[in-house]
């Protein structure tokens, strides 16, 4: 047993790429964004798009426990043993950034319970524009906003919009109804984010999540390399 050895000193840090038994752990991707922007719908669509090829699990961080997890369970996007809900004590951004211990425990429990996983999606509770994931918890993060929340959100910036590895602008199908200017959102986002990618999605059809799924596959390829 080199389990104890692997846990010594700096190896205990959370972003360690190996599990205690020496195998490579799953890639962890965080999904954050304001309330109602479609985080849970994006997670559900990603699971449906990727589950045939990849072994996936999900950790949800609800404001009230289990609501998002219950949605995923009801819609049967994954078997129940692959979905964990973390309680956040009314502070979802604390659980994904300042004190990530409950989330780290949840991802470890999933890998122990389900076996080898390729991908763990960590969904944040709906929060404000400043909520970002700790690098100790996730390897890459997606920030989901939507056109109905106002086309000035990309211009306002904030850590989520500015620094997320992928910015998803969701619900493009609603743009004509809410008077949002997609071109303006794209230009503002590019200004805030420089080279970092931005995709537009509409989840009304099964293929809608395609651009996000493609980005996740690219991250996985880089992780496995």
């Amino acid at each position, binding site marked *: 047993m080199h389990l104890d050895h692997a*846990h010594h000193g700096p190896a205990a*840090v959370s972003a360690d790429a190996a599990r205690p038994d020496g195998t490579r752990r799953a890639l962890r991707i965080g999904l954050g964004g304001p309330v109602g922007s479609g985080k849970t719908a994006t997670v559900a669509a990603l699971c449906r798009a990727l589950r045939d090829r990849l072994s996936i699990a999900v950790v949800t961080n609800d404001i*009230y426990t289990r609501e998002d997890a219950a949605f995923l369970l009801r819609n049967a996007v994954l078997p129940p043993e692959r979905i964990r809900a973390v*309680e956040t*004590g009314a502070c979802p951004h604390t659980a994904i950034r300042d004190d990530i*211990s409950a989330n780290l425990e949840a991802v470890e429990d999933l890998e122990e319970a389900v076996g080898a996983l390729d991908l763990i999606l960590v969904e944040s509770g709906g929060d404000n524009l400043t909520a970002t994931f700790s690098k100790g918890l996730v390897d890459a993060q997606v920030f989901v906003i939507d056109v109905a929340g106002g086309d000035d959100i990309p211009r306002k910036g904030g850590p989520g919009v500015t620094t997320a590895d992928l910015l998803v602008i969701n619900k493009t199908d609603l743009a004509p109804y809410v008077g949002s200017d997609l071109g303006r959102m794209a230009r503002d986002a590019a200004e805030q984010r420089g080279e970092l990618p931005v995709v537009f999605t509409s989840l009304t059809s099964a293929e809608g999540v395609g651009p996000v799924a493609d980005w996740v596959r690219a991250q996985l390829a880089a992780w496995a390399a």
Partner: protein
Amino acid sequence: MTTRAALLVLADGRFPAGGHAHSGGAEPAVKAGRIRNAQDLADFCLGRLHTTGLTSAALAAAAAHGLDPLALDQAADVRTPSPALRAVGRKLGRQLMRAARSTWPSPELAALAAARPRGAHQPVVLGLTARAAGLEPEDAAHCVAYEAVSGPATAVVRLLSLDPFEATAVLARLAPALDRVAEEAAAAARDGIDALPAASAPLLDITAEAHAAWPVRLFAS
């Protein structure tokens, strides 16, 4: 070597060991209407401090003193009739263990982590952490006693939108009682494992089980 600053790091509410998601029984007490204001919170905290607070503080002091952590882990089980609270104790112990080993790596912490991979009881881990940080048993007891009241106070600020100044004043007024409990816990720890207190709180045990089954809740316990 004792360093007072290390105690501040360990006792800081921002120490990343998972405590922020736990109300220490305050969430069910608020729901049941037993905590409605700062006075109720003060009574709740005083009761918790003198029961599970004292018991946990003594376990932590004993671990910091160098008593066998596995025997202390069993002593914690024996003093925790509620399975929900035993699970919470081990969950928080596991989360603290992660933070502790990143902050103050020690062979004793590593050995306990290997012996209890699903988590040892939090006060036992905290006692060993204090030891690794060069702190005294009474420091460990102080830290646990303070957590026993600061967790519920923070939770009630969120649950009742209680004025945070009032909640902090409640904690400040508890300071002399906290000092006495820490002293008593450390004294008991010096007398060995059989002398450790087992003070318990019936309502905390009862409501913890119901709370663990709530489908919708803000706090993990």
